[in-house]
């Protein structure tokens, strides 16, 4: 079934369904185990390996580099579908896709030449920018210091999303002079230890644990030529969250529709003989579905703006790129409140169409809210609105672009 058949709307390109067809059987398998994994707190190692094998992690690479040449709208549409199966998996790949953008955007030919093949060979990258949770702009205490012809890494990183599944950690640090520097660290290098101590009540299987680095030796080749990240990074990383919420909304809508259809118990004071015919119940189901539909439409519209920022980079006009990045940031920020509110409400109100047995852990229905709430907490609405308002009233561009560690 395509997204068109399911009334979720068309994908972002004519070839989208052909591209998606390759991955949908995997998404379906991932979805089958989602409730059990959540209940048993089992990390999706197998699921990530299926995706790697399928080439999913190479989506954005040009065909000539061994990828699929997916546009950003195509990528985000696929992330919506993946999130419908399991939002944890999307989160685990967020940094990988971000690093891929770093490489695709890099001005340094040797950087592209070094990493595009590794990505093409299905190697993946986890995150290593957070040291203290919310305070993303804090100076790094992790040190990457030159020592002879190598570098020596020491420090600790939290919320290293996806790192347990990944071959590399893309990490921010300070060099011997206190300047920012970033590097790729092999997760299996001596001195690297990653523990799954991420304790979120949602997104608990995204392997966002703590990584410690004790005298890890890195060659020059692993150190990035610039600590700058791709310029639409803020918009990109936020949009991954929004796509995740949109997919989660579709899963919630599908679940509630199925469960209402399966309900047998009839309330003596209901409005119809069958619950599945009760207009009040159907209205709730419709509202949840409408929320999911809207979230997808908005996220994909914002994805077009991010694509324009990428294309502006390729075109090489710096002013146009600056403008396109700002607009991408604004469009994504404009999308945050509506999508977040819709999905948080949908994952709460869907229960109003169901009975007491919907509270059994085995149904896994609360995970939608827990996941949505956790994602939303990492992307707070009110501040996005303020940024948009400041632009609308004062013309102030969105803050904090291009800074290391920003997302």
């Amino acid at each position, binding site marked *: 079934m395509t997204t068109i058949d399911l009334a979720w709307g068309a994908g972002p390109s004519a070839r989208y369904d052909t591209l998606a067809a390759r991955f949908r059987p995997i998404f379906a398998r991932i979805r089958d185990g989602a409730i059990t994994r959540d209940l048993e707190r089992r990390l999706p190692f197998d699921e990530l390996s299926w995706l790697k094998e399928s080439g999913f992690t190479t989506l954005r690479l040009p065909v000539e580099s061994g990828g699929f040449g997916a546009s950003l709208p195509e990528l985000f549409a696929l992330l919506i579908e993946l999130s419908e199966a399991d939002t944890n998996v999307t989160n685990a790949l967020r940094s990988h896709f971000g690093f891929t953008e770093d490489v695709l955007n890099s001005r340094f030919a040797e950087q592209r030449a070094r990493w595009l093949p590794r990505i093409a060979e299905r190697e993946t990258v986890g995150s290593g920018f957070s040291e203290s949770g919310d305070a993303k702009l804090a100076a790094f205490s992790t040190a990457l210091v030159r020592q002879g012809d190598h570098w020596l890494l020491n420090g600790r990183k939290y919320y290293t999303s996806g790192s347990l599944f990944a071959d590399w950690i893309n990490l921010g640090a300070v060099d011997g002079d206190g300047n920012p520097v970033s590097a790729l660290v092999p997760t299996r290098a001596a001195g690297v230890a990653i523990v799954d101590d991420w304790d979120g009540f*949602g997104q608990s299987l995204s392997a966002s644990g703590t990584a410690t680095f004790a005298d890890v030796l890195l060659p020059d080749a692993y150190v990035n030529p610039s600590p700058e990240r791709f310029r639409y990074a803020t918009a990109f990383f936020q949009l991954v969250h929004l796509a995740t919420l949109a997919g989660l909304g579709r899963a919630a809508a599908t679940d509630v529709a199925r469960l209402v259809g399966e309900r047998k118990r009839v309330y003596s004071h209901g409005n119809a003989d069958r619950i599945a015919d009760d207009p009040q119940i159907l209205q*709730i189901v419709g509202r949840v579905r409408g929320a999911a539909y809207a979230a997808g439409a908005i996220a994909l519209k914002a994805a077009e703006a991010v694509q324009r920022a990428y294309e502006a980079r390729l075109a090489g006009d710096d002013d146009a790129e600056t403008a396109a990045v700002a607009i991408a940031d604004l469009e994504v920020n404009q999308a945050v409140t509506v999508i977040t509110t819709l999905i948080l409400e949908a994952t709460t109100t869907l*229960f109003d169409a169901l009975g007491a047995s919907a509270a059994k852990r085995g149904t896994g229905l609360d995970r939608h809210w827990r996941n949505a*709430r956790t994602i*939303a907490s990492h992307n*707070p609405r009110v501040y996005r609105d303020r940024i948009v308002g400041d632009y609308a009233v004062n013309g102030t561009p969105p803050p904090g672009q291009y800074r290391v560690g920003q997302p």
Partner: protein
Amino acid sequence: MTTTATPESWLAEAARLRALFARDAVANDQTGGQPLAQLRLLKDSGLLTIGVPVAYGGGGAGWSTILRVTRELAKADGSIGHLYGYHANFLHNLLTQASEDQRRDWLTRTVAGNWLWGNSVNSFSHSLFGRRDGDGWILNGRRPFSSGTHVADAITIAWEDEATDARHFAAVTPDRAGLTILHDWDGFGQRQTGSGTVTYDNVRIHDSEVFANPDVVGTPFATLGPLHQQSVLLNVFIGQAIGALEEAKDYTRTKSRPWVYSGHDRHSDDPWVKRVYGELHIRLRGAELLADSALEALNGAWAKGPALTATERGEAAITVAAANVHAGEVALDVTQRIFEVMGARSATRANGFDRFWRNVRTHTLHNPAEYKTRNVGHWVLTGEFPEPGTFQ
């Protein structure tokens, strides 16, 4: 037992327990099962018997006091609030449905044993049937959602007559032959309410055990049970919401970090953070006042005794339904939005703040708000009260 038997002292005692229960609420949410330590404290406090009439050795507390205690306990722990409230619901049902002999028997034993009551009466499952056998009944079947049976000293049960489908109530102790408590409740919220399955394998009930109060049969007074039950739920909702907002406030003041571009050193100085707390407080205050009005409505209806008219019962039902719907809606809103003003690091299992939403969401499912809202609207449009029955 409390020595100064006043509503104020009982509420003070509940507040003291609340502080104690708060310490283990997160851990107990994670483990589920039985809140044995809390139950011991609850028994020691004497609060289990305040609702028993003085004539039977209890405290003679009014329903509004009992439900305020329920609300207070629920601020820390939704499961305990639930267990306490349903324990009181047993009292309510016994006082309306049982004969004077039955009341005296069960209530004096309840006071003497300092019992907690559970129930096995879920009205939807239609899965427990009795057949006549001599001077009694033989029960076979099962009841899901038998709250409190995992820790109860005594249990209210209900079955349908397999011949007539008429519903009968009785009370038993858990050692009754053939009755098995499965301990299989595994909800995502209200995790220590033990709302699991009870099976009945040829359980024998003597006619003298079947509740029968000829004085009130067929009267509106006899239909106040659902209003009490709805009041238990709404006070648990309100209590959980108040508890969530207070825990969130403490977290915001002591642990939240400011947004990077907020321009403030402390998160609690951010006008938007203040604004959200203000809005949540205001909404919760409105829901609390509506909940208080429902307590008065229930007390007022109860005070009329068997003379209660259908109209008076109906008016109380509308007030309770309105308070219930609003409490549930506001509690879901508060328990969800607190995260907006606590920040990303608040959303961990160790903090356990999500238990509030999970508890309220679980508990509101016992209580279809949609139809209750419709009933209120039907009354608005027509002046007709809901037909007395389960949930209404």
